[in-house]
């Protein structure tokens, strides 16, 4: 296991900057998740670490060693590709055994068999070992791809959206599974996703990327509760944070300079009676989720979505009163202002 350190790493593809001046340290045994939408530079960051791309600027250290002169093989990383990258002409068993047959790691057949079977049962694909890699369901393929990383004991695991093509049930199972595996192996893992639930549940720390720049790095709690700016705030939270101009809640006390209010559902208190510092809103739509209701409201010309108890008797068109409790405030430049 090893630590990864990126120092001011930049990568351009023609005119577009995929990764801009990124500083990031993934400590030994840490599970770091890079979060960001498509095109934020998440995959490129992984590929730079794996050695599949060369940085234009900056330095990269793996286990304290400068990685620049090292080939992908010498870096000893395991990479789970988003497109599975299974070897289509080989069986599942051969796919899993492939990394173990590498000349630098030549193991005898009995050891290979034992390792492959252990990983296959961990991922519950032991019945599929003799199948062709292409004769599997999407979920099985993805598990084989993860398995191919697990059969080795690399210094780092790099995972590029490995759960993106699984159905919801399997995804939540695999989330737990991956966390257990990571903890049991004490593995250093850098994991890329655009799924905020994966980021929140699995990460020791989250790094939020925006157009190649690393905007904020912190524990899931820090990122959620103290986002540096509007962009980071909108990455987390379901339903997503409501952004309203400060004027919409004119009566509320606000830090000086606040231009935008970021109100997560837990910051919005919905009441039926007017209590001094509140604003009047109208119920536009109610979505019943079972344990909770999504409440779509309009406050003047602004729309917001929040969660309420299902037993709160409301119907479309009702007038409600809104007040804020511990909301986030952002200045005109989008940066957060501490309340």
């Amino acid at each position, binding site marked *: 296991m090893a630590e990864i350190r990126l120092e001011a790493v930049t990568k351009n593809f023609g005119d577009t900057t995929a990764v801009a001046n990124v500083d990031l340290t993934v400590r030994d045994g840490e599970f770091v998740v890079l979060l960001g939408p498509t095109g934020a530079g998440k995959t490129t960051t992984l590929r730079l670490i794996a050695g599949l791309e060369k940085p234009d600027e900056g330095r990269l250290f793996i286990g304290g060693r400068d990685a620049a002169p090292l080939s992908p*093989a010498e870096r000893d990383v395991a990479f789970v590709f988003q497109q599975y990258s299974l070897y289509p002409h080989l069986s599942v068993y051969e796919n899993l055994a492939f990394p173990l*047959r590498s000349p630098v790691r030549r193991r005898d057949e009995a050891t290979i068999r034992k390792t492959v079977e252990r990983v296959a049962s961990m991922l519950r694909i032991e019945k599929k070992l003799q199948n062709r890699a292409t004769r599997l369901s999407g979920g099985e393929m993805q598990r084989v791809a993860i398995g191919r990383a697990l059969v080795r004991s690399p210094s780092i695991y790099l995972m590029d959206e490995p759960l993106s093509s699984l159905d919801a049930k399997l995804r939540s199972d695999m989330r737990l599974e991956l966390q257990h595996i990571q903890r049991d192996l004490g593995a250093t893992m850098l994991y890329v996703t655009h799924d905020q639930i994966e980021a929140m549940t699995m990460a020791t720390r989250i790094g939020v990327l925006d157009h190649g720049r690393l905007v904020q790095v912190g524990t899931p709690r820090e990122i959620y509760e103290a986002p540096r700016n509007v962009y980071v705030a909108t990455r987390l939270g379901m339903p997503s944070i409501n952004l309203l101009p400060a004027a919409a809640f004119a009566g509320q006390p606000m830090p000086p300079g606040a231009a935008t209010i970021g109100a997560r559902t837990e910051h919005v208190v919905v009441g039926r009676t007017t209590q001094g510092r509140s604003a009047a809103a109208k119920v536009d739509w109610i979505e019943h989720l079972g344990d909770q209701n999504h409440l779509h409201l309009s406050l003047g010309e602004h729309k917001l979505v929040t969660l309420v108890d299902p037993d709160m008797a409301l119907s479309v068109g009702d007038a409600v009163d809104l007040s804020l409790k511990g909301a986030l405030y952002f200045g005109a430049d989008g940066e957060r202002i501490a309340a």
Partner: protein
Amino acid sequence: MPDIEAIADRAASATPHGVAKVVRGLSDRSIAWLFVAPTMVLLLAINIFPLIWTVYLSFTNFASNRPNRPVVNVGLKWYQDILSSPEIWAAMQATAHFVFWTILFQTLIGFSLAYLIDRKFRGHAFWTTIILIPMMLSPAVVGNFWKFLYQPQIGLFNYVVSFFTGIPPSSFEMLGSVTLAPWAIVIVDTWMWTPYVMLICLAGLRSIPDYILEAAEVDRASRWQQFWSITLPMALPFIMLAVLFRGIENFKMFDMVMLLTGGGPGSTTELASIALKRQAFEAYRTGYSSAFAIILFVVVFGLANVYVKALNKVKQR
């Protein structure tokens, strides 16, 4: 967008009354047959019928230069004659030699070229085009052209060989020597058709996604291992397809070799199709050559079938 129904109405009103009446009485199925019929008739007339007729002729003493002679059924005589004829076996052997070596060289060189040209380097499109030129020439042109190259006194081929080996250029005759002539036609066919094999292999190599090779690289596979366990097996169906195409083509090779050597010296380069042409249109033994054609057909068809089964097995993986 024009109104479809309006067009249909116009077409209906323009159809002559008699035709309309007949068509209205037809089922969809019979209309479908009507549309397919011209192709079927054509296929029967120029493909199926001649084949059946050849089978019939192969049992007779018919000769196309003596159409008025009474046709006698000779049974399996021609088949017996052919299968016990040393000339025919020599022709079959020459063909096997030609097919085997051309395929071997073309596949090895073609795949190697494809592997080299698959790496992106400056001007690789230009070089691909250059390499493809021989394939675009007519076999007749190639045959005549190489006749000059092989000329012992003024030919470039002999000169180049002498330049590298020191053997005097006029000391050997590629086309005139019994031992060299079979190799001379292999060289020309390889020169001409390697680009074609390269093109198919290139398609195979391009079909391997980058991320598969990247995965192998991250999995610490050596270059050698990447080639043997990823690149080659994944390109194999394409290579096999190229071998199939070249095999069938060269089994019936006629034009290039006919112009280059005319089957000689002696009958050393008399391939099956050249022997067949001699029997059919020089000796006018139509029945005999029909039987020979049928034998060739069965051989090619059988081999190709076995091969396609193997190919499908590889492709299914």
